[in-house]
């Protein structure tokens, strides 16, 4: 368990993605194949023991130490696994337990008491770092900042499979990843896997550039709205699955869209919240993202809807080699057969000229539409981002001046710079009180970052750990893609993807607008 606990430490202390990938790579390289499978299952949050909960861990430690001392310690440390490992009586003998042996041993236990008994005996002989690693494994949340995306990037460098293959076949192997590493190194896929039912990499779009207007023949393209939701893939099969853009299984978060059938069909589209016939904002959708279970209150309050715009498989047959127009027809007919009210065909928009499109794009100022999509009629469904097939043409961002209120030190390379900024605007025309509206940490150059850092340090009012409150005197122009009402924010509004547009060193802060002006942007 020493290597695994070292891995957890290294991942916790290194916040850059590049470093994390290197650490994971070195770790995997040091393992035997059967250990790799287990490690991947744990790191990808697919491993779970239902037998032990956080509360059982607390009960164990309270048999060794008083309730008071435990709670003072837990208050100070703030992490259960770490508190536990520091409080467990230190072993005299310095034994260790191998990762593989431990994982194989706990498989044998099927009741709580005997497992706890085994754990207590184990903990009496090993170091506190190993205990820490074991508790982290048992209670699930490693919280070391490793996403599925980082793991997949690391695995691309581990074997002969590319990013798409790993994304697509991931769910054939999870949760246990049996034989995954053999496949990764070039062996054939196990026979019992039905490829159609798996995730299929998405076709992505290029950003539209206005220079293309003279180059493209407008008659070759169809136009759709670009919905502000999340891209998803519905796999209709014996089990039914829903996948996110990078192939994460999100079926549990959106159970009402899960459809089963003994013939496999796969559709591509955008997931949004739609209530009483109206599509709601991305904020409302956020209430549904990332949930392991959804209760009936959430289902009622934030019902999801799928706007389908493409089809990859229909009744077991591959459609990806058909052109877009034929696929759209297939999709419409499949939706008729499925006949479910919360999946609908994303409508095509009629237009005759580039001017029509420009108008459409500019008028698509709606809180659930980000702009328009142009798709070539004769394009096939190609994974990745094939050139010249699909274009996204987002409407222009909003630009608004705000005042910097707080600054926080960044991470990794930026750890000695104040690089994360909270900005706000005046609550009313008395220009006395500010209310925070959002956070931005990009959009400035390295030189500007140095200037901002210097400004923060010499205009600090108060310090709270890594955060400083600053004088209400620096105005910055913030660009953002969208704005909506939000109950989660004190200001009552939430911005989509705010970033610095320019720093207005000379602008007086009382020329910044008040909250009501900003709310007027929402329609």
């Amino acid at each position, binding site marked *: 368990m020493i290597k695994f606990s070292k891995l957890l430490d290294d991942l916790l*202390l290194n916040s850059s993605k590049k470093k994390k990938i290197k650490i994971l790579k070195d770790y995997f390289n040091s393992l035997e194949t059967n250990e790799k499978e287990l490690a991947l299952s744990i790191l990808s949050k697919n491993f779970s023991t239902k037998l032990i909960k956080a509360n059982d861990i607390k009960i164990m430690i309270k048999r060794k130490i008083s309730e008071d001392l435990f709670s003072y310690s837990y208050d100070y440390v703030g992490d259960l696994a770490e508190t536990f490992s520091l409080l467990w009586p230190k072993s005299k003998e310095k034994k260790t337990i191998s990762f593989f042996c431990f994982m194989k041993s706990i498989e044998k236990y099927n009741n709580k008491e005997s497992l706890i008994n085994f754990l207590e005996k184990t903990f009496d002989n090993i170091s506190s770092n190993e205990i820490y690693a074991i508790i982290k494994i048992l209670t699930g949340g490693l919280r070391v900042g490793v996403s599925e995306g980082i793991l997949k990037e690391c695995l691309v460098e581990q074997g002969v499979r590319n990013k798409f293959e790993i994304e697509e076949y991931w769910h054939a192997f999870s949760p246990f990843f049996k034989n995954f590493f053999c496949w990764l190194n070039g062996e054939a896929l196990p026979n019992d896997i039905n490829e159609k039912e798996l995730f299929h990499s998405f076709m992505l779009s290029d950003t539209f550039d206005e220079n293309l207007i003279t180059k493209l023949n407008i008659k070759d393209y169809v136009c759709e709205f670009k919905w502000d939701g999340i891209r998803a893939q519905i796999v209709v099969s014996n089990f039914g699955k829903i996948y996110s853009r990078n192939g994460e299984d999100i079926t549990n978060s959106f159970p009402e869209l899960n459809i089963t059938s003994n013939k496999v069909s796969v559709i591509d589209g955008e997931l949004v919240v739609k209530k009483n016939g109206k599509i709601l904002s991305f904020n409302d959708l956020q209430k549904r993202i990332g949930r392991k279970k959804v209760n009936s209150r959430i289902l009622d309050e934030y019902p999801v809807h799928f706007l389908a715009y493409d089809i990859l498989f229909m009744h077991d047959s591959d459609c990806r080699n058909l052109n877009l127009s034929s696929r759209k027809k297939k999709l419409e007919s499949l939706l008729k057969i499925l006949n479910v009210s919360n999946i609908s065909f994303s409508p095509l928009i009629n237009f005759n000229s580039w001017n029509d499109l420009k108008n459409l794009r500019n008028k698509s100022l709606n809180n659930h539409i980000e702009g328009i999509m142009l798709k070539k009629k004769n394009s096939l469904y190609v994974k990745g981002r094939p050139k010249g097939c699909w274009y996204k043409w987002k409407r222009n961002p909003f630009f608004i001046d705000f005042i910097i209120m707080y600054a926080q030190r960044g991470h990794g390379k930026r750890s*000695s710079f104040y690089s994360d900024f909270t900005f706000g605007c005046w609550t009313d025309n008395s220009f006395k009180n500010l209310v925070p509206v959002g956070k931005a940490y990009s959009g400035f150059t390295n030189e500007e970052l140095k200037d901002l850092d210097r400004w923060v340090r010499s205009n600090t009012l108060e310090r709270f750990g890594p955060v400083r409150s600053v004088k209400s005197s620096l105005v910055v122009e913030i660009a953002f893609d969208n704005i909506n009402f939000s109950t989660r924010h004190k200001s009552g509004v939430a911005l989509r993807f705010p970033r610095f547009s320019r720093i207005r060193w000379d602008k007086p802060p009382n020329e910044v607008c008040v909250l009501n002006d900003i709310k007027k942007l929402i329609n």
Partner: protein
Amino acid sequence: MNNNWLIKKKEGLYCIPGDFYIDPIYPVNSALITHSHTDHARPGNKKILGTSDTINIMELRYGNNYCQYSQKIECGKLLKIRGVNIKFIPAGHILGSSQIYLEYKGEIVVVSGDYKRRKDITCDSFEVSKCHTFITEATFGLPIFSHPNDIHETSKLIKSISENSDYCHLIGVYALGKCQRFITLLRKLGFDDVIYLHGALMKISNYYIDRKIDLGELRNISELKTSDYSNKLVLCPPSSLSDRWSQRFRKVIKGFVSGWMGIKQRIKQKNIQLPIVISDHADWNEILTTIEEISPEKVLVTHGREEGLLSYLKQKKVTCNALNLIGFEDEDD
């Protein structure tokens, strides 16, 4: 206190018959100083009494106005102030640090100041002294704190330097005590290279050298006329790890030598890649052992994480209380 001759006032701990304070946080007429860390030894008192190292370092740090009159006392020597017998006893915390022994009408009180029980060649070791009331610090007064072996911790830095020779190692150390002790540990492990110091660490390190403590070759980093800091070891005050000064180090591994570095969440919060767990304070077990060895009738706790210690002592039926003295920081922070 049994007979109320040592009490807590807003300025700090006060001895009524002797009319003096111990480590007061506001300027007073007469003060006894346990050691020269800035939260214990503040400038502006009229008269102070302390060991010669404590007083010299105070003068070095605060200049002429460190007090009006100072009196130096040798450790172990008895002094009588208005009927109170006083003795300074080594505390093992930093150079010159001491506990203060007070005896009045047969009742003995020992004020620990800050202390540790580990070996430290830069100062005299803690001495156990029997007393009726022991007034202890509790900076690390929770069972989660168990300081590891300091040689092992020091070797982590030496290993990292040899494995990452293209990096600069920037290590935060407390300017007084920790800096010099850490250097002696590095030297003991055979690290002979020049060690570069942030300017704020120079003065006190030079004082240690004058006091015949061998620190090897030290140089002020500002004398280094280069922007290439690779393969250099630089020590700085902890606050400089994230200030503008540190921005000059591009390819850098940041470390911090502190008792707090035993807590992963703390390390993460401070953005440290190389935590080195070395403390100049007693850890949980050492506080308990010390109390056991002294076995006083009563324990009072001055500052730190006193709730944990008090709850434990009460369970063991030791008479104890919190003094809740304010103004003492977690100085390793």
